[in-house]
């Protein structure tokens, strides 16, 4: 009975969706719990929106759902009492959200009715679901329904709303006539069977979580504005008398919708041609790596749309090159990009919306003066496109487990960037002027920099922590982006490139268009690798522990030819009667023997899991090498050698598997050291301090 009801409801849902989306593929729609139809008009003179929305929400769970929770994100910018403002204030960032009169952002529902015209507004209350509760926050609205939504049943809500675009928003905003509009419409949370609504407040350190849906959105703007949005533009009409244009965008199977409008955009379209971008050798190589046929890997064509500010038009090729690389490698490694378009937005100046991802659309961010070997905006483009995979398709909960999208995507970005560009030079800018032509900056890979800068937060928070519960923004971002990525790099090195590539592809494919959690990722790692790696996640993801193994002490000294003292020189039964005062080394006679002692330490709390060891490579002056292994369980371990040559170098973890080690500098020992590099550092430091003193002297 229950099942039959559900089928009926799904059929009804499908019927409605077909009315709304004449072009969608039947069969796919029934998988998705939400259908949106939106019509919005942008009023640039007041920086506001007037909109109508229809939400069809289908209860795909077995629960009877008595209410619906809606995100009203823009109320985070409404006043100084919102959860976002309070969190920002605590971090001394409040001026970022401080607004002049008329610049605060908000969203107000003016009408909320069911399909049969029942007014639900009186039954709507703002709630604060997160800890600590904030009764002043208005970013989550709970609407009590006249009757619960039964399993398989659909609920249709008709909403009229007005919204004021925040001037200095976070991820959304406007400046003069440039607009970037995201998180702008009432959006249901995700209903989780048995657990209820997962609908969090707008937090400073958190992004978003929503259900897959089909969107059809009409956007009306002044006709000289160039518009970009998620999905495909299916219609454009102009009202010349009113000086307005209306664009209609539609997209199936995405979980958010953002758009942008500005008169200063140039819109350029190119095609990503799968056949041209990937060589047969590359297909062959990846097919071998993943154990798939070349046919399984074939990449489809994708229409790439770039909206770039006129001031950056000389960077069009840089933008497209990075996007092509991202579509190619994410597609080859994880699965082909499933949508027909991708829109890349160089965000309107000063809208606070750069470097952000939305399904089928992302914002990059660049500068008018760029250096060739500093990989910006490339890094941002690859990363934000990559979120179409980790967040867009594999739609993890960014509020509760941000590492699942940010960490995995930072890892993926670093891989794509390395293979497409190599190491990038660190940027050095003063007042917008790049100084790379004057001062040589080091070239580093993302993973090298990421692992280094994440060291300070190792003991602050576990990677798997709800976003708003991190110690601060620094701990949030360094943990979920870089420490998580470093841990994944470590796993890749431990398991080997082939197994790891298959882990990642399996995880992606299995959870495409779903909402996985950390346990799902761990399960895939264990399953594909055939190992139980739960300990790894316990040590590095669920706990804030420092992992630092080190060579603490190396000593090599000549073994004496003679030992002084009293020695027994007779069989045990007569030893008390006969003694000699010294004894020659019986082993080697006059040959020099060196005794070498190597002490290893475990400084950190985190340790290796069962079955894993740390390798130790010892190189002697005659070129001979010895290998040892340590299970790393105790706090220290000592290795001793007697050889006719001195020790030259020692490496702990010589293959560099354990990138999570927070101090790699203590993982090696060489009698020679790093050569003149130390002197070079000292000389540079000296010169710097001298310059400070000369400046001080010249001014005083």
């Amino acid at each position, binding site marked *: 009975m229950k099942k039959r009801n559900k089928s009926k409801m799904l059929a009804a849902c499908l019927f409605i969706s077909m009315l709304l989306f004449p072009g969608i593929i039947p069969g796919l729609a029934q998988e998705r719990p939400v259908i949106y139809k939106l019509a919005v008009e942008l009023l640039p003179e007041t920086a506001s929106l007037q909109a109508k929305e229809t939400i069809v929400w289908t209860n795909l769970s077995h629960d009877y759902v008595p209410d619906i929770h809606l995100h009203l994100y823009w109320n985070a910018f409404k006043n100084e009492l919102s959860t976002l403002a309070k969190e920002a204030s605590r971090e001394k960032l409040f001026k970022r959200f401080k607004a002049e009169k008329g610049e605060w952002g908000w969203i107000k529902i003016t009408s909320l009715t069911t399909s049969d015209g029942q007014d639900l507004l009186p039954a709507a209350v703002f709630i604060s679901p997160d800890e600590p509760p904030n009764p002043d926050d208005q970013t989550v609205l709970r609407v009590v329904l006249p009757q619960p939504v039964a399993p398989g049943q659909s609920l249709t809500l008709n909403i009229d709303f007005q919204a004021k675009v925040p001037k200095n928003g976070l991820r959304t905003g406007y400046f003069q006539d440039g607009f970037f509009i995201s998180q702008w419409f009432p959006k249901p949370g995700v209903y989780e069977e048995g657990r209820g609504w997962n609908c969090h407040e707008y937090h400073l350190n958190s992004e978003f979580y929503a259900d897959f849906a089909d969107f059809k959105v009409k956007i009306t703007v002044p006709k000289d504005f160039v518009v970009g949005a998620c999905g495909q533009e299916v219609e454009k009409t102009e009202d010349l008398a009113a000086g307005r244009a209306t664009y209609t965008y539609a997209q199936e199977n995405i979980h958010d919708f953002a758009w942008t409008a500005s008169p200063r955009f140039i819109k350029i379209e190119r095609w990503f041609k799968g056949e041209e971008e990937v060589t047969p050798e590359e297909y062959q190589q990846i097919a071998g790596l993943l154990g798939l046929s070349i046919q399984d890997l074939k990449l489809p064509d994708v229409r790439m749309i770039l909206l770039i500010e006129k*001031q950056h038009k000389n960077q069009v090729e840089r933008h497209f090159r990075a996007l092509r690389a991202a579509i190619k490698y994410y597609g080859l490694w994880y699965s082909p990009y499933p949508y027909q378009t991708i829109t890349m937005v160089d965000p309107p100046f000063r809208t606070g919306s750069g470097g952000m991802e939305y399904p089928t659309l992302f914002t990059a961010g660049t500068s008018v003066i760029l250096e060739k070997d500093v990989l910006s905006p490339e890094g941002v483009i690859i990363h934000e496109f990559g979120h179409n995979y980790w967040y867009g398709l594999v739609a993890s909960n960014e509020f509760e487990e941000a590492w699942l999208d940010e960490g995995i995507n930072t890892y993926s970005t670093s891989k794509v960037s390395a293979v497409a560009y190599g190491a990038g030079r660190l940027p050095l800018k003063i007042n917008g002027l790049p100084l790379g032509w004057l001062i040589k900056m080091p070239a580093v890979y993302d993973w090298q920099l990421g692992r280094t800068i994440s060291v300070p937060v190792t003991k602050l928070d576990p990677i798997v922590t709800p976003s708003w519960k991190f110690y601060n923004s620094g701990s949030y971002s360094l943990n979920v982006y870089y420490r998580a990525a470093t841990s994944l790099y470590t796993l890749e090195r431990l398991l080997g490139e082939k197994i790891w590539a298959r882990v990642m592809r399996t995880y992606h494919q299995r959870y495409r268009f779903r909402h996985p959690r950390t346990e799902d990722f761990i399960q895939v790692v264990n399953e594909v690798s055939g190992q139980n790696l739960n300990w790894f996640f316990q040590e590095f993801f669920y706990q804030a522990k420092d992992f630092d193994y080190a060579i603490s002490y190396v000593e090599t000294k000549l073994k004496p030819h003679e030992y002084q003292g009293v020695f027994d020189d007779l069989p045990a039964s007569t030893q008390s009667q006969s003694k000699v005062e010294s004894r020659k080394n019986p082993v080697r006679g006059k040959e020099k023997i060196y005794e070498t002692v190597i002490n290893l330490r475990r400084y950190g709390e985190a340790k290796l899991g069962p079955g894993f060891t740390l390798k130790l490579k010892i190189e002697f002056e005659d070129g001979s090498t010895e290998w040892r292994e340590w299970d790393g369980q105790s706090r220290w371990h000592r290795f001793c050698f007697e050889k006719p040559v001195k020790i030259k170098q020692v490496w702990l973890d010589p293959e560099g598997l354990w990138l999570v080690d*927070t101090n790699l500098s203590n993982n090696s020992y060489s009698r020679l050291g790093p050569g003149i590099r130390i002197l070079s550092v*000292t000389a540079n430091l000296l010169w710097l301090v001298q310059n400070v003193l000369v400046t001080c002297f010249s001014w*005083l």
Partner: protein
Amino acid sequence: MILVDFLKSGFNRAVSKFRLSLYLWLIMFIISLIIIVPVSYEVRANLGHLAWTEKPLMPFELNLIEIFLANQNLLASYSVFIIIMLLFSVLLSVFLSGGLFGQMLSPEARVSFRDFLVDGCRHFWQFLLSLIIFIPFLLIFFLVFRLLSAPLKLWSARAVTEWPVILASWLTVLLLALLWTAFRLVLDLVRIFVVGESKRAMAAYLSTLRFLHRHFFRLWSLYLLIGLAVILISAGWLLLVKLLSPASPAGLLIIIILSQAYILFRLLARQILIGVEASYFSARKEI
């Protein structure tokens, strides 16, 4: 005399007393060494036995950051040491300025380390006093700077593209530099009055303001010319060093020599500036 003559005269005066730059260099070299010893020690202790390969896992610069992060507990005590050293450097700078101005304005052609130190002691209190009296000038400096930079800030705030922001920022820096040199000129001239005319600090300020009332723009343009030359030579020096590789011992040795030559150049530039100001002052003080 035209401006070029003052430059020539000041330059000759500075070059003939080049030893002063050497004295200053030596003293600052020693102080700098003292300041960097703890850091250098930590670097050596942490990285002195780092095994280096053709393809290291991490670039050396990141190893440095890593040990800095690993030794953050030392940062607090080192910061206290740095603050103490900076305070000491302020007093030392006043003392060294006394020595430098004293010797640069001295009619004696020869300079000696002893005389340099004696002049440092002799003028220390008046120079320190002149520095303290300069604080209200600093407040005026910041006020004027804020007033003059306000239109740039407004222009930048309204800009819908990046260029006005960058240009405004460069112009603000330029404005800051121009204003600073103008105000800085006051302190230099005060010290010339203190040394050359044996005036006390407050009287020297009054004389300076009177003098600058008549000669400000000519003196300021001399200051700016020298400043511009220093900037251009510094950029050239940085470009030259960028071409050299510190990876080889010979390359590193050349870089070290060039680095110290640059410090000497900066000190000589300061000497030249004082020489030019002094020449101008000598020639125009009666006018």
